């Protein structure tokens, strides 16, 4: 399995070489946290970008810790968290009302209805665009396999298609991470400008 540093070097070689590249997909067998870290290093450290992370498999606190451990500032990013409302401890339930956004964290209570996730991502994207004042931002979408457990392929495909169009209109660099045998692989390849195998 590739280490985060190797993945980072590969990404550095490939990503954002053209202005026309707005939406990409990465097909990988690498460990997700390592790939996430490599992408964060590329987007945040190298490109000084702000971005949105969809937290489908891991809560936003996980990403925050990952960023802190690697010398990056988690407060710079926006999180759309579908995990915390399911996982939360009593203290989180008491202090963090997951019905409302939390500074840079937006919670999604139900991923079986993708419109909830869609609405939250748009809300965050609007906020991010206002905050970044014309700078380019990124959107990281992973956990498609998990979303596929709760949604039929058609709904998931519509969701990704709609999201990619909106990301382009917002000038957000959208990165979709998928497994090798992803059910929607063909659709994702047509949506994206470039598809990378890592």
């Amino acid at each position, binding site marked *: 399995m590739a280490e985060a540093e190797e993945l980072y070097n590969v990404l550095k070689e490939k990503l954002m070489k053209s202005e026309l590249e707005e939406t990409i997909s990465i097909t990988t067998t690498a460990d997700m946290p390592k790939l996430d870290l490599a992408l964060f290093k590329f987007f945040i450290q190298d490109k000084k970008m702000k971005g949105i992370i969809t937290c489908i498999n891991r809560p936003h*606190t996980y990403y925050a*810790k990952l960023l802190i451990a690697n010398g990056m500032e988690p407060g710079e990013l926006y999180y759309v968290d579908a995990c915390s409302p399911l996982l939360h401890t*009593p*203290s989180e*339930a008491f*202090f963090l*009302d997951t019905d*409302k956004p*939390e*500074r840079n964290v937006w919670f999604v209570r139900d991923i079986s209805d993708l419109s909830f996730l869609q609405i939250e991502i748009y809300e965050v994207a609007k906020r991010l665009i206002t905050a970044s004042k014309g700078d380019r931002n990124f959107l990281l979408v992973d956990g498609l396999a998990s979303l596929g457990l709760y949604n039929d392929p058609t709904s998931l495909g519509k969701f990704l298609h709609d999201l990619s169009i909106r990301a382009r209109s917002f000038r957000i660099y959208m990165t979709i991470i998928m497994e090798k045998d992803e059910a929607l692989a063909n659709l994702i390849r047509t949506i994206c400008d470039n598809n990378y195998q890592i």
Partner: protein
Amino acid sequence: MAEIPYWRMVLTALPLLAFIVNLSFGVFIFRRKRILVNRLFTLLMLAFCWWTIGDVGMRLASTNNSAAVMLKFINIATPCIPAIALAFVMALENKTPSRRQLAFMVVGSLIFVVASLAGWLVSNPPEQRFNVYMIPPMPVSIYNGYVYFTVYMMTFTSYVIYRLVRFYRTCDNEMVKRRIKYLLFGAFITTLVTFITEFLVPLVLFQVGFDIPSLGSFSTIFLTSFTYYSVRSR
């Protein structure tokens, strides 16, 4: 119409204000998700409401006897406050109290409720100071039930705050951690004001010529407000 003395107006209005704040926040928390931690905090708010409305009643009392009855009424709720607070903190920690802890929480509270109702807690009836009825000054003596009550309340409350500090240190969610800080700050101010005005003044400071009104029930407003801020701030 006879003019209402200044101190009487202020010292009656303060716990009334705290009552309104505590009741509102209690209702707010009660209407959130039906989970133990929210229910326990609502119970804590209700205990605060009991204390504050009892204080209003005592300050409005027209006779010494009715003030004494109100003081007994107040002390049905106050011994339970640290026990409810401990149950709340343990629920925050996601821990279940052991049988021994549960027994201590229930028995400890019950002893002082019974002692208060039997008239063993405060030896003398309330007296008028600052134009309102207040806890009378009492000697520090082994025969004085209020000394034991002070020790019980302060030890128990300190233990609750200690647990909260320990939880703050071990909590790995930065957002929750930041919020516990506000709760801790509120709890600390409330405890400090209560300790000084409800325990230190009647037992020690009054005897050396220093007197300030009882502000314990009013000080609950600090805990409630800081907790409200910690829960609602974004």
